[in-house]
């Protein structure tokens, strides 16, 4: 069979061949992950991705848009702040983390008195039961922890922290 000159016989590069397979969800996890990383950085691959979308939609009878909608949306998205979601860190059972978690729980139970001066009564405050695992939450948000702030008018009253014993 004579080769058709309008049809490329060889891939222009492994990435292009891989991109076509990625577009169809047919790449291995390892290859796909590597190509996805490159996809958002490489203009040529990004252009191919758009072309494959147009081709597929045209074959399925969806009309092509000259891009006014995409241009509008791009402009709107450009004004959105860049997302930076908290990094999910693996949670390990570690005594130091428990201690810091307990310390944080203890710290936030201090009662702040702004208006009633001179009442030295210690207040019993039931803390969270010891077997509740706050580690994942703290691990995810430790980069965003805000220190407690105070001004001169605030008075801190110490509280007696009672940790409920849960039967094992």
């Amino acid at each position, binding site marked *: 069979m004579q080769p058709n000159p309008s049809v490329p016989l060889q891939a222009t590069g492994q990435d292009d*061949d891989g991109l076509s397979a990625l577009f169809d969800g047919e790449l291995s996890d390892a290859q796909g992950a590597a190509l996805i990383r490159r996809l958002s950085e490489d203009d040529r691959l990004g252009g191919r991705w758009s072309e494959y979308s147009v081709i597929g939609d045209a074959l399925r009878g969806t009309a092509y848009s000259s891009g006014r909608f995409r241009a509008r949306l791009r402009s709107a998205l450009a004004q959105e702040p860049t997302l930076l979601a908290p990094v999910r860190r693996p949670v390990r059972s570690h005594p130091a983390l428990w201690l810091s978690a307990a310390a944080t729980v203890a710290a936030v139970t201090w009662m702040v008195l702004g208006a009633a001066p001179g009442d030295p009564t210690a207040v019993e405050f039931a803390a969270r039961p010891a077997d509740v695992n706050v580690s994942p939450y703290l691990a995810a948000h430790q980069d965003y922890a805000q220190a407690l702030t105070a001004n001169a008018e605030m008075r801190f009253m110490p509280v007696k922290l009672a940790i409920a014993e849960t039967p094992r």
Partner: protein
Amino acid sequence: MSERDIDRQLVERVRQGDKRAFDLLVEKYWRRLIRLLSRMVRDPDDVQDIAQETFIKAYRALPQFRGDAAFYTWLYRIGVNTAKNYLVAKGKAMPTLSQQALPDEDDGVEERLAVQDVSTPESELLSKQVALAVNEAVENLPEELRTAITLREIEGLSYEEIANLMACPIGTVRSRIFRAREAIAAKLRPILGTSEDKRW
């Protein structure tokens, strides 16, 4: 790696600050979203407004996206709710499920109008040229490439299924689909004014 895995990885990249990864998701799904919204809202300009609002909402809500549902399903839910709110604000009723399920004679017209930029005759002409170019390019493909791309894009078969149907290795299917796409893209580029090296 399935399409769902690809979307999940792109979402993760967006959450790490890569806005271009969201652009890739938009490019993949915006026409499909508009097609669905056109079943609920008749005015094509309103459909585009709702679609834009849907994508903005989805972008802002990505930190909360857990991946339990497929990205497109999640996006579609946002789109439906946005369309509902829009219709309520305009004092209109949502189409009933039976109306949505039954195709009518005009099925696809609003969708086509919404996807097109109907404001100019030029954009309508461009849309027709693109459709013509793609169909002509497919017709001029060698039979095995035409079969492979058709089974993939229109019938939605996997490479394995296509390989079984065409009695060839999966690698051959992958190559045929890639070559078909390249041949079609080469015919499209002069019409779209794009080049091989540039992002759109």
